[in-house]
């Protein structure tokens, strides 16, 4: 029985393209109000997964439910609650920016014209230019506006910042931080710029070869992996350190820097005290966590 609460549910979803298994028996729940970071190398299956959610792809096997409807049968009513930014930004080239915004906004009763005006001003979008002559960064900014302008409940961002310059990226992050103030809004963001993603997400999905390696809250991931710097107060460190679950370790005579998994801060501090060592503990960045999980 499928739980009606999650906004997206996938059960045993598989999708193949010839010999490539893009999604492999995937189970997934995305709850309302979550900001999900979808991470993975190129070809891990991220875009395929996102396209299943909006029904552009049909699963070979399994079921994908979005807004309590089979994704393949999503009607304009449900699709009107979904904003989708695609990494290649398919737009109507011959229109001017203004014409394209007017064309897309005509489809939505919920179009927020104040947000549109603010976005155009903040992101310095030229309304007179033809879409086909915009730079990749400008196109992406426009694609983002078209996806958020009607204030969708579910916002799917597939590599949204890949072509943005650093300033536009930072503005985009600020915008996302504003958007996520609405507790009912769910955002799924797939990106390779993990330093940006970690500022906004509260849930992490890490994929490899069509499988989900990790599906957990970002907070629990940050608690799970800790970076420890252990410095001996008197003399050298002992040859064998009494810590379990060490993932990697670099050491000198008086200092060791290592990463541990599933050990509480209290345990670490207690053991450091027993060794007569100074200890510094910090959570890992998303990029460091990602590297560990994927490797």
């Amino acid at each position, binding site marked *: 029985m499928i739980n009606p609460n999650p906004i997206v549910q996938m059960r045993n979803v598989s999708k193949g*393209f010839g010999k*490539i298994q*893009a999604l492999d028996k995937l189970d997934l729940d995305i709850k309302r109000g979550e900001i999900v970071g979808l991470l993975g190398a190129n070809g891990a299956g991220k*875009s*395929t997964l996102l*396209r299943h959610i*909006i*029904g*552009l*792809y*049909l699963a070979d096997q399994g079921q994908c439910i979005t807004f309590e409807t089979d994704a*393949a*049968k*999503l*009607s*304009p*009513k449900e*699709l*009107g609650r*979904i904003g*989708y930014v*695609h990494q*290649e930004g*398919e*737009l*109507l*080239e*011959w*229109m*001017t920016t203004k*014409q394209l915004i*007017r*064309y*897309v906004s*005509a*489809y*939505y*009763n919920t179009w927020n014209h104040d947000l549109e005006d603010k976005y155009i001003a903040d992101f310095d979008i030229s309304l*007179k*230019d*033809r879409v*086909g*002559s915009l730079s990749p960064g400008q196109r992406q900014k426009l694609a983002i506006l*078209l996806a958020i302008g009607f204030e969708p409940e579910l916002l799917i961002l597939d590599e949204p910042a890949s072509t943005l310059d650093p300033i536009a990226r930072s503005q985009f992050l600020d915008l996302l931080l504003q958007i996520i103030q609405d507790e009912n809004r769910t955002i799924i963001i797939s990106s390779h710029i993990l330093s940006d993603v970690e500022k906004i997400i509260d849930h992490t999905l890490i994929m490899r070869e069509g499988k989900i390696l990790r599906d957990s809250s970002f907070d629990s991931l940050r608690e799970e992996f800790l970076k420890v710097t252990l410095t001996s107060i008197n003399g050298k460190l002992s040859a064998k350190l009494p810590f379990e679950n060490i993932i990697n370790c670099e050491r000198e005579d008086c200092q060791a820097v290592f990463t541990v998994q599933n050990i509480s801060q209290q345990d670490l501090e207690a053991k450091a005290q027993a060794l007569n060592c100074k200890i510094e503990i910090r959570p890992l960045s998303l990029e460091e966590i990602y590297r560990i999980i994927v490797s």
Partner: protein
Amino acid sequence: MSILWANLKHLYQKRSFWFVGLFFGAVAFGIAAAITQAVTRNKQGGFSAPVLWMLLVGTFIATLPIDVVTKPFSYCLPGHRNIPRKFLFFVGLPLSFLWSLSFFFFPDLNFVKTVLACLSAFSTFTIFYWLGVWLVFRFRNWVVVFALFPLLLLGDKPLNMSVFIEHAIVESPLPMILLGGLVNFLALSYWGRDDMARRYCGTMRLEVFDAWNREKMSKFRRAKLAEKDKKKPTSMRISDGVEGFFVSRISRAETGSLQQNIWGSLYKSFGIMLSQQRQDWMRFLMLILPILCFLCYMPGGGKNIIFLMPGLMVTQMSLGVYSNLLICDGRRQRFWSALTLAVTTGIFVTVVIVLLAIATYLMESIMPQLTVKGHDFAFKALNMNFTPVPFLMIPVTLTIGLIFYKKPMLTMLLAMVLFQILFTFSIFINLKNWPVQIGPVHIIIMLLCSWAVFVAVLRHISMRCCLVNQGR
């Protein structure tokens, strides 16, 4: 391995060139047959047939060095800047030489005249080869260059160009040799310029089979649009009136309704066309009228090509079924808006063709009879019986386009095969003793069948297939 040799390997390493090789091999075989006929039956013009072959070869071969010089990595690659010239000479001269040997079989020439004819032929073939190469380097869109060939082929017979060239080769060898020498010298300096690599590095160009590469075509179109906008920002834009008309209807329709999607689909497809000014339409007419006159003066069934071209042209038309989510259209909405678009296009094209056919009927009485080199050419109106052909062919080519959406090359090949079959059929049907008579009932049945198949395929793809045009 030398750099030149590595570049020559492209001739067989590029898969698309396998087709090119096959095509040229087959045409060369035909030319050899024409030359044999010229020898045995004393037919004029056969010996100059390689001229067109060399021109075509030039346009194809030139795309290979262009492919290399436009790639930024080759700009800094040691020894690469002179390669286009070496490559072009290495291919063009031996081919011209081989064809020029055919003049050894030219009848009624003594030894000296034969040698002079061979040298003259060699020069002439290289001239046409370099012309083909230059056209490709000059125009960024290879397809535009290729579009000239049907006109050259069709124009050969009335203007007797092949006989004229053959005479020039045999009767005036010295001027032809001098001209050839000059052209080759110019080619040597033109393709050896210092700024050659800088001029072409990183430029966007369309090559042999790029017309069917959607991604590259889209990039090319974008680059052209950006250029056009710099020169004339107001050209090819949707007018405020047209925008207001469609956008107000989309807004007023119920959200997510079929009506909304159909208005949107029509706006996307016809917005630009409806926005054109009177002078744009006049310019279009000025372009189409000479072609129409040329076709109507052409003897035989060649003019029927005009009924088949629309079908071929819509092969790459986007019906909006395969697209990402820009607006909130579900699968059902995509099906209906695509169907509306196909029917509207079919009706529009058919109406245009009917109007053109009527225009030719009106012109028939006033257009004079032309006499070119002793041949009389009368203006013959387009055959009204063929006017349903576009409406019959459009759903068939659209169906092929839908099924093989991810294989544009195959789509185009199949559409061309269909084109050939129908073209041949249209010529046979004109013959007086052709046994099959096509009546209105047959036409209606064929129309119904072609549209029924299209609707069935469109429905299947819209409702039961993956609908993304990018990625895997």
